[in-house]
């Protein structure tokens, strides 16, 4: 509870307020109240009052440009996505850009605004799993590969252009999955051909 009352840095275990000398230390320190080992890195934002959102200013002069969405409000800048004039209320700063709500919505829908992505499916991992797992599962896994190898190729080519994970830069998993699947298919075909040839030569 002291954390709620002091609004300053507090021990994460007993919630006792921490003096400034125990904050932003290089190593661990002991809480003066509970004796637990801790480290607290405190930043100026903790003591900064919450900023109020800017409201659009009403058009005062005859020659002032109006906001595209609020014609009665004065435009302060143009959207960097679509070029529409925006008032202070409609301006959304995101990742160093100033965008309008419509561009943000569109960017989020198309997945073009990386900073708004909260969830991604890792198709490259799925493709690699389809290629590798049947090979490493002994016995039964080999019989699955005629199904999983084409499935892996489908996933790889179908989702090649889909965005990868946010911190992933290369598509090496797709490449490896395609190579393994092709090898599996070619190897399987060769094996069948050899078996067929052997059976035929026996006759």
């Amino acid at each position, binding site marked *: *509870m002291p*954390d*709620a*009352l*002091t*609004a*300053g*840095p507090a*021990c*994460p*275990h007993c919630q006792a*307020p921490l*003096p*400034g*000398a125990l*904050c*932003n230390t*290089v*190593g*661990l320190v002991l809480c003066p109240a509970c004796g*637990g*080992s*801790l*480290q*607290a*890195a*405190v*930043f*100026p*934002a*903790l*003591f900064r*009052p*919450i900023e109020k959102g800017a409201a659009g200013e009403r058009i005062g002069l005859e020659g002032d440009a109006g906001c595209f969405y609020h014609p009665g409000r004065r435009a302060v800048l143009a959207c960097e996505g679509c070029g529409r004039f925006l008032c202070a209320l409609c301006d959304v700063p995101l*990742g*160093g850009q100033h965008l309008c709500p419509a561009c943000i919505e569109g960017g989020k829908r198309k997945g073009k605004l990386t*900073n708004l*992505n*909260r*969830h*991604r*499916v*890792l198709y490259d*991992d*799925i493709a690699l*799993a389809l290629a590798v797992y049947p090979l490493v599962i002994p016995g039964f896994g080999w019989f699955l590969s005629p199904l999983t190898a084409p499935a892996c190729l489908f996933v790889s080519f179908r989702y090649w252009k889909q965005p990868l*994970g*946010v*911190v*992933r*830069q290369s598509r090496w998993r797709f490449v490896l999955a395609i190579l393994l699947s092709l090898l599996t298919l070619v190897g399987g075909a060769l094996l069948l051909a050899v078996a067929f040839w052997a059976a035929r030569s026996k006759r």
Partner: protein
Amino acid sequence: MIRGIYRRLPGRGRASNVVSWARHRLWLAPDHLLSVGNQGYTEDYKRFYLKDIQSITLQKTRRGRIINFVSGGVALGFALWALYGWLLQWDTVGVWVLAGHSAFFVLCLLINTALGPTCVCTLRTAVQVERLYALPRVRSSLRAIRLITDAVGAVQGALAPEAIDGASVAVQSAGTVTAMHTPKAVSLTAKGIKPYRSAAHAVLFTVLLLDACHSGVLFAWQSVLMYVLGLGILIALLASIIVALIRQADTDLDAGLKRTTWWAMRYVMVSYVLNTAMFYVFLGLSGRSVPSTTPDMWELMRSMWMTSPLDSPAVLVTEAFSLVGSGVFGALGWAQLRAFRRRRREPPPLAEVPSLPAT
């Protein structure tokens, strides 16, 4: 490692809750910190903008020591078992399998020791308090926090210790600013501490009482069925204690009740070790009395199960310990749980109504 705008920070960990087993990592961008939770074939992201981060706290925990204690205990148990088998000239393969199990747990112990002490890290902004699952170890967390601190300092500037004390005092004394901060902080606390709504503790204390009853009955009646029942109770006890410890984390459950649960876990561990030791002592004594070099294990175990606590001091000690320990912890836990439930059901005290001036 740098990928695009992101720089990978030290530390990786798993969300230690029942719902998610995601692997977490932290990545630092010029203007934000990215927490990546990988569930195998999907990833979830959380961004914390550097200008919004208010504090990062690290709290050292005892989880690492508990893991070492458990791994060491299990390794010792297997090692003693293997040694016993070797002394009695059991099948060599069996002895090696037991020794291999012991080596595996020794390896777990060594890896856990090498990784260093454990911790819990939390990040606070104006609207959230988030646990950083990617930082479960002190050593890597300190390095990661240093890098994050440098990046946040470049955006927000640094705070001197005097400035922190001064700012705290200013926040407490300035009415307008306090009004702005206090409700926010209260709501954060309300978000961080969840109301306890689980039957895990009720189940745990009931199972403990059942265990006490079971130990009591063993004084009068011994049979294979009773030992099978005891095994079932032990499994239920281990499972319910783990669930209770998980469920009580970050809840408004009484501190005394939480402490009792932790002590119950210690008691169960000691009881388990005591039972195992008793098992080996009993087998050792019986094995010596059996003339053949390869004794029939089933017969030995059966004879142990059928021994009354009144006939063997070793069995008497373990069963008495189980009867008293389980009984005390079960009854104490139930009493505390009932008090907690009663307190919660009581309505909050009414605010004093100002009396009307007499006319």
